[in-house]
């Protein structure tokens, strides 16, 4: 229980840092760190396949994509940077306060979880679930990867080539 609270608090802290930091590259690094935290939490819940997938795909690929995109932005001068930092602070100072207040409020609220848990005794492994029961999902993933491939071809081409 205490470990849960610790992991979740670290997660929320990293998310806050990602949102509030001034440098864009640090924001992207924060996003990768969020993926790592999520992976740790998923391992804790005994969901190894999803955790490894998340770590490899998200923390790796999204990092690469963002770095590529972010590297197209300009470099800012020192003064502009200070101006931006002050602007950011003015806009975002409310966020940690909102988070803390919301957290305190939600911990008090007692939502009656009066629903009946389904009596599911499933001893399937993830592989058999994906292959035998959810083949349409696999077709969907193939099609969405195709769509992504077409998108990359069409969007990353130079104009007029």
């Amino acid at each position, binding site marked *: 229980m205490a470990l849960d609270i610790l992991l979740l608090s670290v997660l929320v802290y990293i998310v806050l840092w990602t949102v509030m930091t001034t440098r864009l590259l640090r924001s992207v690094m924060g996003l990768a760190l969020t993926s790592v935290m999520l992976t740790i939490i998923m391992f804790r819940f005994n969901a190894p396949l999803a955790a490894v997938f998340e770590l490899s795909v998200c923390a790796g690929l999204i990092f690469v994509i963002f770095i590529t995109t972010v590297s197209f932005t300009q470099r800012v001068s020192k003064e502009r940077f200070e101006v931006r930092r002050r602007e950011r602070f003015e806009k975002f100072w409310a966020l940690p306060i909102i988070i803390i207040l919301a957290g305190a409020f939600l911990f008090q609220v007692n939502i009656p979880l009066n629903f009946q848990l389904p009596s599911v005794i499933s001893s399937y492994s993830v592989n058999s*679930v994906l292959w035998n029961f959810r083949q349409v999902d696999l077709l969907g993933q193939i099609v969405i990867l195709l769509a992504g491939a077409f998108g990359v071809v069409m969007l990353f081409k130079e104009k007029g080539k």
Partner: protein
Amino acid sequence: MSADFTQLFSLYSVFIVLVLIAGFYCIIASFNLVRALIGIEILMKAVTLLIIIAGYVTNNLALAQALVISLIVIEVVLMVVAGGLILWIFRHNETIDTRKLNLLKG
């Protein structure tokens, strides 16, 4: 539902809501397109965690992991396409400041 699971779910759901609030704030209050994307990423990670919790509580982690895997694939393709759009907006405008994107009066 056993008390143990109830407590776990309540705890996790509070933190998930906090992360969702942070993500929404990031999207609404940022003037930079890439930050809006980061906000969407944060939101999707929060709901990924929610699916895992739901799977743990109903003892159906196999299905939950299958859902999470599909969701991650969707997320990646969305980010790639979004990155492509931002790239082209940058090539047109030389900036990714949303205050300069006001051609559409919607």
